[in-house]
């Protein structure tokens, strides 16, 4: 009996000395752990990971060169009939006699490239503007906010359309930039708002009381803590960026180089044009886009949940 009691007592002592256990988890790792327990996040991440792998290893995954035209495919190709699956070409031909399967695979690369780059550029510029506004304040803040006002005066896709329409030349970069610019004010405002809130927060006050240099306060306290919201938004923005790019293609304002295998382009241009001839040309890229967008949305939503202090314990 007493041994049992001893044992229990030891456990109690251990408990009381709990803080002495080595190692600690940071907030981010903690959130990460919570993410890993969330099936939604897993599904989202899995989808994205899958497509990322495909994108990165596209040359290994794809059966063929995505821009090469194959005689065996062009042989039977006319405007009103596009050959379907044959040996060596599992998904058949695209309207120009190229291997559709390979184009789908390379499409992952291009599409993620456009989405990711557009988001990142938007993020970078937005964060820069927002951080300056939030950190400097005063008339700089007012100026930056008025600039974002002007940008926000148009709904996002409309702004992107306008930008592409106003671009003197259109390339893949026009689309990327247009989609990126749309997000700049969103990120900027998000970051600024969050930074302003941080500025009043106790831990920033504490850092100031410690005599930490203003620059370090901004860089080490205000910015990192404000970035969470921005990162969550960024994850969600990937989805929107990919959809916006597809919409631009559909409107005929997308990347004019149809050699580039990009799902939005494949759907918005060929998919719609040859829908009756070969609906797969639309269904495959559409499903791919939906899946990727879904993946990012799922991940973003669960990240938002995971990072929500309400759920932390």
């Amino acid at each position, binding site marked *: 009996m007493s041994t049992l009691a001893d044992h229990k007592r030891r456990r109690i002592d251990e408990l009381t000395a709990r803080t002495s256990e080595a190692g600690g988890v940071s907030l981010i790792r903690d959130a990460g752990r919570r993410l890993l327990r969330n099936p939604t996040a897993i599904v989202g991440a899995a989808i994205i990971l899958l497509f990322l792998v495909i994108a990165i290893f596209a040359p290994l995954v794809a059966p063929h060169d995505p*821009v090469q*035209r194959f005689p065996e495919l*062009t042989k039977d*190709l*006319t*405007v*009103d*009939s596009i050959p379907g699956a044959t040996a060596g070409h599992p998904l058949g031909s695209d*309207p*120009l*006699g190229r291997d559709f399967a390979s184009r789908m695979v390379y499409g992952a690369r291009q599409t993620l490239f456009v989405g990711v780059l557009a988001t990142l550029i938007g993020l970078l510029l937005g964060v820069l503007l927002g951080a300056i506004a939030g950190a400097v304040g005063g008339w700089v803040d007012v100026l930056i906010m008025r600039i974002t006002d002007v940008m926000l005066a148009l709904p996002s896709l409309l702004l992107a359309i306008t930008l592409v*329409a106003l671009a*003197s*030349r*259109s*390339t893949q970069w026009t689309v990327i930039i247009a989609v990126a610019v749309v997000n700049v004010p969103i990120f900027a405002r998000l970051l600024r708002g969050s930074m302003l809130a941080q500025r009043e927060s106790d831990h920033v006050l504490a850092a100031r009381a410690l005599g930490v240099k203003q620059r370090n306060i901004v860089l080490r306290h205000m910015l990192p803590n404000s970035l969470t919201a921005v990162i969550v938004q960024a994850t969600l923005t990937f989805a929107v960026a990919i959809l916006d790019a597809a919409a631009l293609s559909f409107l*005929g*304002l997308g990347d*004019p*180089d*149809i*050699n580039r295998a990009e799902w939005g382009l494949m759907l918005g*241009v060929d998919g*719609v*044009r*040859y*829908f*009756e*001839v070969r609906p797969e040309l639309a269904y495959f890229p559409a499903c791919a886009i939906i899946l990727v967008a879904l993946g990012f949305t799922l991940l973003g939503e669960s990240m938002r949940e995971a990072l929500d202090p309400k759920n932390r314990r």
Partner: protein
Amino acid sequence: AESDRDGGGKGKAATGGTFIFAGAGDPKNFDPIFNDDGESFRPIRQMYDTLITHKTGTAELEGGLAESWSNDPTGKIWTFKLRQGVKFHDGTALDAAAVCANFDRWYNMKGEAAQSQMIYYTDIFGGFAGSPDAVYDNCKAPDASTAVVTMKKYKGAFPGAFTLTAFSIASPTAMKKYGADTVTQNGDSFSYSAFANEHPTGTGAFTFGGWNKATGEITLNKNPDYWGDKAKVDKTIIKIIKDENTRKQELRAGTVQAIDFPAPADRKALAGEGYKVLDRPAFNILYLGINQKNPKLKDLRVRQAIAYALNRAQLVQTKGPGGSAVADEFLPNSVLGYAPDVQKYEYNVDRAKQLLAEAGATGLTLNFYYPTEVSRPYMPNPQEIFTVLANDLQAAGIKVNGVPRPWNGGFKDDVQQFGKQDLHILGWTGDYNDPGNFVGTFFGRAKTEFGDASMTEMFTAIGKADATVDPAAKKAAFEQVNRDLAAKWLPAVPIWHAPPALVTTKNVEGLVPSPLTAEKFNTVSLTK
């Protein structure tokens, strides 16, 4: 609302009913002289007539408002014998005075605003009163049925150019009443008179019934007093549907009876479903322009290599709309001066490579400009055509740097004004049956598009051929021009002739496709 639809179409090939035709774009206005595009000309053609016209379904000339015409040996004086008893829609009689009023109106048009809008007039007639380039001199009416038009110089474009819808004859009374000549400039654009917008008055088989811009419907009513074959339907509605896919769907839904410019991809399906696919005889050309500003391209062998490198037969097979054919010359074979025996460039990559090697132009890199945001009858999908052509060139060892430009947002500027390109694709739909309208337009003078002002031999040859008055001589001259274009000059590579099609429902009879896309709807009837 009373529905005008399917009022007719009952009974066999009956008269009456409403014929709904889906056009592809908005017209600008209905004053012929201020227009230059097919979508505006479509309704105008139904409401107006020209002095000379084409035989239905062909590009051959035939009397229109003028029963016959003749010219003097210098080709400067044109005499028109007018049809008797023709009346404009407002009741004004068509006589020589009315014809001359039209010619004088054009020549004496005031104001840069108005003048700048008369594209065809400036092109054909050179200029306006006071301009040294002006071609027109005067118009006399010796009697009510004879109009004599005198030119300052001969132009090969005539008499074909008299068929241009832009030169339709309008009622002088109506034009005066509705202030046809007032074109006011407003901001970046122009507004036109009431004549052009609300009261177009011609002699055509249909009268103007209204343009509902909100729904994009132009209503044309049967002209019961038409001088020629009276319209079989009571009413024609031109419904503007810009999206080719939607046009097709509306056709299937039965809400329109005919559509223009079906997507090439849809032809087969529609034909299979029992719709009538009407191919127009080809009257256009798509070419690959070569800019000789690039010294490498000044070498004929390089240009020939490019021609050999292109697998045009395959392009026609895979991307050509139905009825399209490889082009060996810059004009369709129905046009005067087509030479059956020009040098042909069959697809031959080895020959291309060899020629390039001979010219010392291996490892050539070329900027290939192509338009985006546009679809033309001769070029339904420029991006695809570019991709295929570029692919062919790459295969022959020519590196291609594709430069896409929006059609109106830089392509035409860069290509035609600044000549930034090495290669480009462009084309043309003929306006009237004349070789000058094709070859002359492209290569008749130095143009930045092709970058070489020193090809004087070519310019003179074409100029001479164009100035030949005698038809036979003219034919021979142009045949030689075409031979030389292919063998000696090769300023561009002709790609294909791709006729645009029309599709109608089964119950539409009598719609005859015209090579010039100049269909008149008075022949149309609806059966049930």
